[in-house]
């Protein structure tokens, strides 16, 4: 990075002169044109594929076209640079850009929600950055300063942040905290938790993190299967023969199933461990003032920041394996930019596979009076079992009828097995579901084989729905759903009065509290 500052840079030029960005910006424009071109190549690809043979033999056709495209790109980049000017004034930034379609963005600092610095790889050697400004409005209003010097970018950022602080000291916490972040150094950042590789291995085993890897591999999966098949054949294992059950005893089939299960589970577990390490390597959760910062990642380091007042729900997630080894995943769900049930995972802070003692310490810090691990939960009505047993019977029945009608009675046994598994899962679900409430918090317990505890402050509810189907009403049962800024949480099959009482209490908390929910 370039550290030296020339005199005219040390003072931000806030006069009304329009300024140009660095000529290196042409590189940026060229790259973005190329990206655009590659993105649109799909449309001309069929033409190229069809005419490939005849085209390649006639350089007199494609050569001029290619040269013209290259020239157009370069001219476009130069013109884009030429027409890109910006002006900084006391409390706003203006950007003029565009060759044919002129754009003039007039952005008051007060409307800027977030300032982001990007370091494209082709700028890194020269110490240039792109500075983009997020606004609360639509994406079209997004403004970007291309190719300015690093030091200048810092100054502009600082200027915007400081002004934000003066105008609205607390209103915009994104910026306020960022400003304080740049002012204070990391010295008063206190580390709350770190995760060792051993923890991550445990996390990989107990929680399936395969998708992290699979997502990256998905384009190659077909190839992988083909390769695996040819490899197995080469060491004289014929997959088709292996799976022809016709002349095998039952115990042999069972043996194969178990073998196959482990043969599948071991690589999956290994992949899952790798996934856990890739996303959580070097995990630290630290606290600076009222702000939690999570940093982790093997290849790209991710950083998620959350101010404590923005914390909405605290979740303790324990899969059944976690229950065995007494670990838990602690999740801090904050206000999601997307909101609702599709709350983005990236907005949440998860502390993977902590011990129960560590989780208690973290909870004590984030939600001091929470009794999430100690309070007695009230279960739900056994009518839940009745309804779901009936529903699963209705689901199973057609299959049973078909089996009997087709006279393949021996298939009834596996069907009975499925039915019993279904019933036991419903039973587990019923055992898990529970609720508790105290003066400050609401606690929900959920899960089937594993168990999740959710805990949130009463006054943070956004909206409450009292839900009661006609069937529940006949049994004097009911449920509710709380809408929080991080998503929705609900429970059903409670006693009618109990559910209503909780709804009333939550409404009272939300309506009587003058505290801000964020």
């Amino acid at each position: 990075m370039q550290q030296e500052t020339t005199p005219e840079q040390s003072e931000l030029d806030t006069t009304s002169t329009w300024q140009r960005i660095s000529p290196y910006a042409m590189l940026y424009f060229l790259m973005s044109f190329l990206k655009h071109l590659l993105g649109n190549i799909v449309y001309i690809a069929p033409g190229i594929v069809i005419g490939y043979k005849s085209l390649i033999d006639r350089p007199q056709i494609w050569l001029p076209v290619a040269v013209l495209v290259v020239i157009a790109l370069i001219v476009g980049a130069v013109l884009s640079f030429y027409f890109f000017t910006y002006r900084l004034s006391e409390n706003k930034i203006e950007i003029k850009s565009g060759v044919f379609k002129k754009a003039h963005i007039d952005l008051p600092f007060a409307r800027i929600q977030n300032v982001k610095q990007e370091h494209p790889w082709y700028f890194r050697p020269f110490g240039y950055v792109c500075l983009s400004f997020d606004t609360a409005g639509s994406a079209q209003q997004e403004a970007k300063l291309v190719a300015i010097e690093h030091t200048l970018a810092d100054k502009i950022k600082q200027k915007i942040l400081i002004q934000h602080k003066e105008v609205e000291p607390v209103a915009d916490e994104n910026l306020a905290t960022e400003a304080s972040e740049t002012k204070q150094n990391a010295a008063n950042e206190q580390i709350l938790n770190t995760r060792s590789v051993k923890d991550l291995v445990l996390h990989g085993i107990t929680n399936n993190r395969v998708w992290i890897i699979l997502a990256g591999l998905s384009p190659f999966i077909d190839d992988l299967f083909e390769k695996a098949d040819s490899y197995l054949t080469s060491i004289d294992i014929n997959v088709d023969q292996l799976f022809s059950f016709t002349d095998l005893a039952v115990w042999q089939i069972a043996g194969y199933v178990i073998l196959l299960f482990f043969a599948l589970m071991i690589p999956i577990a290994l992949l899952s461990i790798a996934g856990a390490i890739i996303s959580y390597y070097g995990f630290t959760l630290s606290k600076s003032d009222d702000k939690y910062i999570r940093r982790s990642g093997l290849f790209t380091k991710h950083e998620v920041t959350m101010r404590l007042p923005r914390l909405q729900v605290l979740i303790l997630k324990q899969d059944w394996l976690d229950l065995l080894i007494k670990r838990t995943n602690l999740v801090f769900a904050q206000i999601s930019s997307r909101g609702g049930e599709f709350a983005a995972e990236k907005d949440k802070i998860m502390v993977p596979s902590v011990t129960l003692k560590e989780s208690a310490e973290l909870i004590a810090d984030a939600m001091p009076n929470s009794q999430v691990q100690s309070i007695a939960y009230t279960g739900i009505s056994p009518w839940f079992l009745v309804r779901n047993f009936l529903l699963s019977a209705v689901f199973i029945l057609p299959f049973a009828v078909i089996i009997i009608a087709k006279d393949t009675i021996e298939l009834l046994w596996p069907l009975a097995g499925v039915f019993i598994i279904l019933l036991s899962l419903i039973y587990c679900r019923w055992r898990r579901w529970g609720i508790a409430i105290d003066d400050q918090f609401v606690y929900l317990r959920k899960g089937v084989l594993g168990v999740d505890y959710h805990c949130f402050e009463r006054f943070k509810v956004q909206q409450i729905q009292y839900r009661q189907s006609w069937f529940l009403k006949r049994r004097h049962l009911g449920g509710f759903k709380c809408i929080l800024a991080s998503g929705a949480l609900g429970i059903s099959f409670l006693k009618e009065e109990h559910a209503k009482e909780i709804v009333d209490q939550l409404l009272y908390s939300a309506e009587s509290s003058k505290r801000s929910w964020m």
Partner: protein
Amino acid sequence: MESFSNNSLSASQYPSISDINFLSVENSYIKANLLISIIATIVLTIIALIVQHFTTGKVSTIGFHASYLIATIGVIATIWGYLGDKRKAYALRELDISYRNGVIFRKTITQPILRIQHVEITRGPIERKLELATLLLFSAGGSLHTFAIPGLPDERAEQLRQYILDHKDTTSAE
């Protein structure tokens, strides 16, 4: 630390959602919806019958069954929609606004006014004709949980909106 001990008192302390008096949505809204459903069912069935007439013998009997199916679904949807509209009701309390709906799966949504981010009134072409409006309330709970009260008389919707805006100003905690 606060304990859980005074819970037994609480049930009678808080105003209860059981005591809310709900106001039904406008009759003209229910009637208009019913009329639209009936017309839509008839039109779709007629279209299916016409298609069936011209394709008899050429295509299979699918067209024949389709018209029956469309008619049946249309009738059920019309009745269901009518019953649903009949149950739609809203209520305003000092600090919150509630909306009730659902035929079999009944819901009473209560939105504390303090948590409302944004209020909107929309009027479709038919609503405009009937001088009706839909009130939309947005909270931070996301677009999925925006709640809409349809079938309000114009001036009532406007009143509610104004009440919410005024109320937010006087008690806003932010």
